[in-house]
């Protein structure tokens, strides 16, 4: 399993070509795509998340690791599909209406991908109506909303209300995050969970679909 170790290491070091080459080599050695995913890419991103939460990794390190993971995943994805491997679940993600900040949202998306989820990214400035439509179109298990500003946070509550009005609230879990967002705020607006950072968000999502 030397080759899996090299993939793990390449992701940890943010080495894009190392991760991509490693996945190609592992596939040509005949390793199962699911094993490469679980023990190479997902295990490495989980370690990246732990390093971030411990304060040893920062946003730039996390970003380049995620970029390396994505390089490996781009090679692996068609094989995963072909082998009938199941994703951990589907997540729709977006920064709420009025807010154009995307780096936190992108990081959460990458950590979710790195945890084996299929991610539908609606981008920034996403209206409650657009979130509702995406639940109809993509049938996700989870909606993840981000806001950086105290002025835009309220759109999270409005989105939950819109989901209720559309009769969809029962079929999807809602999680929120972003600099001013707190657990108390999540409870206040009736979200299913809050996460203080991208790594914990991936853990939270896993616990919600378990």
């Amino acid at each position, binding site marked *: 399993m030397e080759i899996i170790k090299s993939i793990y290491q390449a992701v940890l070091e*943010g080495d894009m070509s190392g991760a991509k080459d490693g996945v190609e080599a592992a596939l040509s050695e005949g390793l199962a795509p699911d094993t490469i995913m679980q023990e190479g890419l997902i295990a490495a991103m989980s370690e990246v998340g732990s390093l971030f939460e411990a*304060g040893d*990794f*920062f*946003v*730039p*390190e996390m*970003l*380049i690791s995620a*970029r390396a993971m994505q390089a490996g995943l781009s090679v692996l994805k068609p094989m995963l599909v072909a082998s009938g491997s199941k994703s951990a679940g589907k997540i729709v993600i977006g920064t709420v209406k009025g807010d*154009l*900040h*995307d*780096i936190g949202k*992108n990081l959460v998306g990458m950590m979710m991908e790195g945890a084996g989820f299929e991610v539908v990214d609606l981008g920034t400035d996403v209206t409650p109506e657009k979130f509702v439509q995406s639940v109809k179109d993509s049938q996700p298990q989870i909606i993840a909303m981000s806001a950086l*500003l*105290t*002025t835009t946070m309220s759109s999270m509550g409005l989105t939950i209300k819109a989901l209720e009005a559309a009769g969809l609230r029962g079929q999807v879990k809602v999680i929120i995050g972003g*600099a*001013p967002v707190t657990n108390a705020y999540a409870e206040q607006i009736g979200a299913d969970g809050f996460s*203080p*950072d991208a790594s914990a968000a991936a853990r939270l999502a896993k616990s919600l679909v378990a």
Partner: protein
Amino acid sequence: MSHKPRYTSKERVLRDCAFQPIDRITIDFCACKEIYDRLKAHYGLSDDLALMEKLHVDFRYPKPNWIGPALVDSQGRMTDYFNIPRAGVGDFGYALVHPLANVKSVAEVEAYPWPTVDMWDYDDYAERCRSFEEHAVLGGAWGWFFEAASELVGMQQWFYLLYDKPDVCQAILGKIVDFMEGCSEIMFQKAGKYIDICFTGDDYGVQNGPMMSMPMFNKFARPYLQRMYNVGKKYGKPVMHHSCGSVARLIPTFMEMGLNILEPIQVGAAGMNIDELAQKYGGKLCFHGSIDTQNTLPFGSPEDVRREVRHRIEIFKKYGGFTIAPSQHLLPEIPTENIVAMYEEAWDSGWLTE
């Protein structure tokens, strides 16, 4: 009990920076235009300086006038002096376009239309600094080089570039700081005798911790930040640095580099609890800000705000070196009554016995 100030604002602030006893806690104000307008309407005042007097603000921050090319892009959008079109909440908003998003070489950096130091009117600036004889004057050019670089390139792309092409990043940072340091130097040459504090700002913190690792900070921020601090040091002024977010882990480095005053103290960010900071650095580093714009001011009651103000005064009574101010620009969602409560309480409870 009625009190009489013993010092002018200028004397009070300078004494406080040197940890000498003062008559009352110092007060500062920073807000977006909408808040200025709302408060002026609330008090029935017509100009900004009258509002500063009303709120008992000890500081003044005159800005030079831009005489460079019009700050509008080809599509008629407002730009900053790096040609970045901007929009959004408050006066500063955020970048709509990242003109260096695809930068690959130092030659491309060289070819970018960088602003030059002659794009400000320094004579008018000196005159305005001189006019504030009784107030503490903040001066110098704003040194937001890391932030400007991340807006020129786009933040995510910029973080990739720090790994992929460090030489290109350093070329960008060098160009930005050549401009900012150059402007600051001329400001101090022309107006240094009227400026009390060298004020610079660049953000290195996010909610959970520093934005980058220490080796990365040392490579891509410290040398440039030192150049901004050094302008103030050269003219014998205390240096004040604005950084949002959690910068607790960077404070010892800032102090080693010559920092005197840290602003704005985002108290909800990791490690930025004001009691802990006071305990660790009280009497050695001045703190400016800390009235919570992420929580208390937008979401609390006027009494919550008053309690927070009294708490700060209580802590810093024994150390000195503290200014009551918001923990970030006051933005439109903050209720007027909370701002009024903050400044009333700062005045009423701010008297200290020497």
